[in-house]
């Protein structure tokens, strides 16, 4: 019985990867909203987007919105917690608060 449960669980990982890859990527994951849309994009916004998606999801679901006045504080906090570089910090600031 125990062995069967263990095997069932081990199957869970490849199964979930297979299901995930079988679906087309898309959905709501993207740029977090600052309660308003910005018409202009800085040149490194794409880089910031990659940093945002790659680093946030290492630990948690990326938040979809920030209160603008705390954005810099949040990124400082995450720089320490996730050991981000200065380059990542700047890219995130450009992406979230251009």
């Amino acid at each position, binding site marked *: 019985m125990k062995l069967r449960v263990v095997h069932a669980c081990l199957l869970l990982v490849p199964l979930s990867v297979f299901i995930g890859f079988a679906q087309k990527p898309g959905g709501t994951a993207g740029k977090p909203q*600052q309660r308003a849309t910005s018409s202009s994009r800085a040149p490194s916004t794409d880089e910031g987007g990659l940093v945002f998606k790659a680093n946030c999801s290492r630990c948690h679901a990326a938040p979809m919105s920030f209160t603008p006045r705390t954005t810099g504080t949040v990124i400082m906090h995450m720089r320490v917690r996730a050991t981000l570089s200065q380059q990542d910090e700047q890219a995130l600031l450009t992406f979230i608060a251009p």
Partner: protein
Amino acid sequence: MLLLRQTVKYQYLSIVLLGLMASGRLTSQNASDSELTAGHVPMISGGAGYIYNVNGGVPTLEPQINPVLVFPFGQHVLLESRTDFTGFFQRENQTSGPYKGKVFKTVEYAQLDWLANTHVMAVAGKYLLPFGLYNERLEPIWIRNLQDSPLTATIGTRTSGAGDGLMLRGVVTQTANLTTQYSAYFSARSGIKQLESARTAGGDLSVFFPRPRFEIGASWQRFLQGHRVNNSATYVSWQPAAAKVDIKAEYDYSYYGHGYWLESAYRLDYPSLPKLFRKVQAVGRIQELFPLNGGGNGLPPIRTERVDFGVNYYLRDDLRLLSSYGRSLSSAQNANVWNLGFTYRFMIPLWFGGKR
């Protein structure tokens, strides 16, 4: 009288929890649309939640609030602190009678950070021990996919999960394809209330590949008081860009035991699915612990296996309902573990303006 006091405490905690949720919501609505530049104002962030846990037939009510105070001084110095308020309420006779319990208050960390440059960030004060994936990164109630900690969570985190002293961390190298990160610390022994820590030294080294979103790392710690032992952890984390899967695994080893956990979380967030299903996250975890030298120090004395399955439902990105079922298997007893509840992530600015 005691029961009345506990009930009042419990009600007070619930009111604070609801108040935080409301204030977070109101703050969000009041944010000016014209403020699009990053601000550096102090804030209180964190998580709150309420968990109904049944372990081996014994129900426990666990309301929790973990506020994090984040106070920047310019753009290179940051003061941050997290306090945990968790209530544990159980029936008087475990399965019958009125609920009784108390609220535990713990300062989990209180640290001053100096963000010198990419390669060096200095942390002083009480900080979370960077050991493995769980203690520093996945422990907050709103982050963890399953509410129960892994069996190996006490390895490398004695005695309080935090260290008092100095930690250096930063990025060793960074290219477009990989980032190498490190942390190294020394902690002094302390028995001061809310500053409890053990005399330890250790560090963590990890390599993150941003394109495949794959991370591999290792932690090491030398416990330098009483019975001096080494602790180590090896971990991997993978969030493939083409799939909404989050896979994490860790192997921990100490003098008192060794074990592993493997967790997979799958978010059904695809446009082709009905909206109802897109907010669902399915989680599975398997873990096994093998005690050595009699176990102890937070580890069970007998070999234990556990499997968990959970379904979380994201009402919003900051508010989710959660449910899970686990089965704990050991030669002493097999037990079912149920969890039902919700978690909420809040973020409240403590000042106006502050645009950069």
